């Protein structure tokens, strides 16, 4: 079956700037997030993802004003993550113009939040954000607070539980690969994408178009989040789209 893979620019924000790090650390300031968001919209992004990467430190998401201004002239779905801890927080961020929320830390601390958000706003609004770190072959641990805190939880078990509670999508970030350009953690993506019935967004590690095709064809990802490659102009959305729409080599040769 043909699949329409979504390409989602990921903008990590340390208010007021777009930043980019390695392994979710060592941040570098890239510029004004809205300028990037607007450009990606015009170049054909399928959705946008804003993550407030310092929100957990301050205990709240600080992106409402940015989201409001972005949604004013960007007409594609916007997902916002970072520091969202309650149904009230979700209400506020949706009122600012977001379409979905990505929740990690607060859901790990209180899984019932997933059900509350899904009940109130629908599962399509509740994206489970998972930061996964490799610990042994076929085994990954859940991290929170941008890869800073370990939780002792198994990624597969956690994702299954969260989907059961009502998560409608999974944003799966590899802490090991994030910002490295070494390619996605394919075993991780494949494990999770084939485990659950909801779409999985692979994030972390894309360095080139081969990585992109691998994560879709071998990793079975339904969507990919891209930061680095776009922010540094190493790849364009059009190039990625073409790579995804070109049939696999063995088929093309027939």
């Amino acid at each position, binding site marked *: 079956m043909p699949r329409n893979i979504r390409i989602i620019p990921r903008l990590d924000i340390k208010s007021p700037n777009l930043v980019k790090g390695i392994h979710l650390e060592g941040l570098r300031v890239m510029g004004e997030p809205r300028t990037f968001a607007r450009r990606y919209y015009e170049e054909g992004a399928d959705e946008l993802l804003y993550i407030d990467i310092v929100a957990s430190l301050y205990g709240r998401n600080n992106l409402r004003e940015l989201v409001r201004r972005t949604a004013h002239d960007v007409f594609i779905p916007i997902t916002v993550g970072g520091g969202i801890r309650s149904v009230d927080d979700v209400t506020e961020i*949706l009122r600012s113009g977001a379409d979905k929320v990505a929740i990690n830390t607060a859901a790990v601390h209180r899984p019932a939040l997933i059900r509350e958000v899904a009940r109130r706003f*629908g599962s399509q609004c509740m994206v489970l954000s998972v930061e996964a770190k490799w610990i042994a072959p076929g085994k990954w641990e859940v991290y929170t607070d941008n890869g800073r805190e370990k939780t002792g939880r198994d990624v597969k078990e956690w994702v299954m539980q969260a989907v059961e509670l009502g998560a409608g999508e999974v944003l799966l970030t590899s802490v090991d690969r994030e910002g490295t350009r070494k390619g996605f953690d394919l075993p991780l993506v494949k494990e999770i994408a084939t485990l659950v019935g909801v*779409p999985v967004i692979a994030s972390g590690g894309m360095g080139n178009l081969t990585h992109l095709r691998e994560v879709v064809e071998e990793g079975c990802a339904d969507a990919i989040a891209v930061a680095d490659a776009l922010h540094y102009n190493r790849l364009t959305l059009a190039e990625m789209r073409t790579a995804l729409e070109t049939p696999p080599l063995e088929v093309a040769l027939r």
Partner: protein
Amino acid sequence: MNKTVSIVDYGIGNLFSVSRAVEQCGGQPVLVTTPEEVLNAERLILPGVGAFADGMDGLRTRGLIDALKAYGQSNRPLLGICLGMQMLLEINEEFGIHNGLGLIPGRVCAIPSTDITGQKHKIPHIGWTALQKAPSQAQDWDDPLLCNIPENTKVYFVHSFTAFPTHDNHRLADAWYGGRQISAIIRKGRLYGCQFHPEKSGPWGLKILENFINLN
């Protein structure tokens, strides 16, 4: 003078995007919450996300069901979006059997969890999928809502349930998912329903909204 577009606010979902998109298309968005406002609207958008029963409950507790049914018979333009589209039909099978507004004959059922080859596929159907002619082609692509929208234009879907109008001539455009054709746009007279989100489908989605606003 900008055309007024009344958007039904019944306590669910996010109206910011729809309002903002209407404004961008040259319309004047007004949120309406009472039966009188619905009955007096010139053109109406019924938005919505989430569960069918919650949506109908939201309409019921605000006393909007009869007003919407009456509006629907008044030959004024109505656009249901996503859940708003599904509520235009008669029956929904999400967590039990529920009655919809019954403005367009048909039912709403879950998208099967496997594709036509029997492989498991992802639910919800989330993403950008091409608009295509409905199988009957009883209605051609010339509908005013599709003015200047080429076939195969991709628009943004997010849904787990799908509409089956009883009459094929109420299917205006379809989309393929898992090897099946699902209703993307339904139409009966001046009642329209979009399963996708025109307000989140970039410039083409805005064009569809603009066409709706310009229906005369």
